[in-house]
């Protein structure tokens, strides 16, 4: 009985409460608001404090640096929302990149290689999806396994060689910008994909069902949601996006190597969590993740321009990740304490 009296805010965290109460101040206090403010602050500091940051050439480059992270984060967001994880994305990218090298060496044209690469990436995702949904294994264990397997396949395919003689017309494509604007073509691709994924997640029944699965997959199943089918296809999509990211990565550096994007999965996971997606599933928004990806990109670029070693960036990435999970916890804790104190005061005044 008493549960019906409780306001919904209690069981939900800082993000969810911004949906419950739509006042602008509340929205600003949400995780997405906080991280957007942080991004604006970082951009302002970088453009005034770091020489060369606001340069349009640099801005275009900075975008290119996060294209793969952005693409991979789109599908990873969906997977984390349903309470799964895919750690094999960067290895899948490496495998697809190595495959591109092999296929190019065997004389295929780029136009044939591109669909094959995306297909192979999707197949890699399908294996993850099969093991998770049909065999019933935890996705963390499965994708740690395929992380090793796909990276291993990349080495088996290409060894420690590098294929670098891709046609110039294709390798210059990623760095071409639209007119004089500092917006390279891959950014357009990311924006289009982000809009599609964003609409699916936030404006369709399928998107709502993802949150249902993440909150309680058992209940979602009883509500008629095809949990396994959706999970499987999300893993396939994750693989296909890894294939797509592999194409951009390979062409951008004009180099197919087995160790391409080694360890990138952790940066993507960090960005998704920083964006406010709960690792337990059921909570988080795509705009939040995209802002987090931008924040990671800005910090990375500004620090490199400022002659901070790229390795020190690890300190920043790790610190940001921990703060990003600590901060909402602290906010919830503080709010809870405040609420309890207010309740105690009320009780004291009425008695």
């Amino acid at each position: 009985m008493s549960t019906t009296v409780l306001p919904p805010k209690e069981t939900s965290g800082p993000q969810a409460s911004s949906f419950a109460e739509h006042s602008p101040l509340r929205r600003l206090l949400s995780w997405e608001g906080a991280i957007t403010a942080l991004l604006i602050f970082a951009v302002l500091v970088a453009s005034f404090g770091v020489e060369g940051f606001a340069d349009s050439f640099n801005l275009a480059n900075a975008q290119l640096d996060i294209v793969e992270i952005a693409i991979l984060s789109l599908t990873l967001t969906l997977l984390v929302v349903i309470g799964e994880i895919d750690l094999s994305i960067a290895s899948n990218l490496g495998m697809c990149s190595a495959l591109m090298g092999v296929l190019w060496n065997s004389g295929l044209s780029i136009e044939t290689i591109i669909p094959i690469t995306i297909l192979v990436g999707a197949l890699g995702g399908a294996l993850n999806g099969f093991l998770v949904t049909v065999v019933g294994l935890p996705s963390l264990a499965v994708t740690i396994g395929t992380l090793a397997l796909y990276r291993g396949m990349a080495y088996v395919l290409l060894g420690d060689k590098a294929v670098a003689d891709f046609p110039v017309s294709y390798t210059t494509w990623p760095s071409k910008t639209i007119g004089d604007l500092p917006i390279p073509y891959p950014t357009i691709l990311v924006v289009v994909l982000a809009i599609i994924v964003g609409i699916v997640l936030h404006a369709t029944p399928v998107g709502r069902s993802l949150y249902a699965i993440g909150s309680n997959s058992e209940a979602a199943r009883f509500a008629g949601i095809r949990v396994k089918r959706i999970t499987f296809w999300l893993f396939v999509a994750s693989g296909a996006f890894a294939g797509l990211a592999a194409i951009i990565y390979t062409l951008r550096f004009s180099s197919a190597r087995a160790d391409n994007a080694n360890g990138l999965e952790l940066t993507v996971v960090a960005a998704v969590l920083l964006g406010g997606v709960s690792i337990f599933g059921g909570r988080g928004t795509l705009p939040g993740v995209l802002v987090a990806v931008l924040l990671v990109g800005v910090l990375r670029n500004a620090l490199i321009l400022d002659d901070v070693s790229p390795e020190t960036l690890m300190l920043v990435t790790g610190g940001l990740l921990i703060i990003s999970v600590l901060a909402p916890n602290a906010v919830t804790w503080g709010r809870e304490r405040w609420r309890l104190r207010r309740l105690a005061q009320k009780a004291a005044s009425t008695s």
Partner: protein
Amino acid sequence: MSQRASTIAPGAGKPDTVAKQRSAAALLGRLARARELGLLVALFLLFGATALVNPKFIGVQSLKDILLNTAIVGLLAVGQTLVVVTRNIDLSVGSVLGLSAFVTGLLFADHDIPIAVAFVVGIVIGAVCGVINGVLVAVCRIPALVVTLGTMYLFRGADYWLAEGRQINAADMPSAFLKLGSGSIVGIPTLVLIALVLLGVAAWGMRNLRSGRELYAIGSNPDAARLAGIPVGRRLFVAFVLTGALSGLAGVLWAARFGTIDATAATGFELNVVAAVVVGGVAIFGGSGTVVGAALGALLLSTIGSALVVLKVEALWERAIDGALLLLAITLDRLLALRAERALRASASRGATTVPTDAPAPTAAAPATATTPAEGSAAHAPADAAAAPPGGDPAAPISNASKGSAR
């Protein structure tokens, strides 16, 4: 065990029911030992097959090399087991190892410290890293996956920041220290002896100490463990500190074994460790598995690495084979767990149909098996009810209830 079951549920006195329960319980116990046995068989076959191609593979020197290669990853696998059994994970072990190894080398190069001090410093560094992880997981209640992903970056970043591109060479370290990494005592490499002693201590503790058993309880069901009065936070904290300290020690041993250290030492090593632990039969979602299994998993993976060289398979295949083996191991586990669950359910529903009032009997039998580590893994399997065959018989709800209480 049968005694206990019959005292708790006197209605289960029918010999037929008891026998069936006992066989189900025995199946669970067998399952736990099956993994270690299976690993030994796999190792035996691997050694046999490789020795057929090149008999030198089972020569003294070759065996010594394999054991040496296993010692460090085995040590980390033991530490990782403590954490994974509680349904957590520590991805920062590779970074902790790297940090500890570099600081050890740095102290030797710049300050000429005695060897004992190096060990103390390494272990303390590891323990401090473990304290950071432990506080974030146990006090701040952040999921371990996220925490250790973050600290993996943090500790590695600290390592780079300290190193500033510097490399420590064997010449900077005392020869007695380096001898520790390559020398032997009575024919067994020193590193292996250290690892074996710690493995023995950990195996004994996990099996016999109250706190060791409580780690399994936490992993099987954290909420139930809390309700049962287990100090969950404190246990988790200690598990992370121990894992950190072991990683710190492994860092010192790494420095002794390889002599050359820079900030990249053991990058990505955490995945090898997790692979070894999972291949060794420790369930990634906690509650089941042994440190001995994890160590055997580490031995199997490093033996495969050595065997590939002998079999003249390109070393490039090693990673792919590691991954495939991990997937194979967890798939097998899952299938075995499903079988055990079906056996349990069959005996439970039979018990329920003969004497309906005996419904609690199967539940009494299930906790009686709690001393066998497999209990957790079998209890885990039904969590995904969708995978289980739809129970068409009327006894299905009762068997569900028994599953629920077994968890």
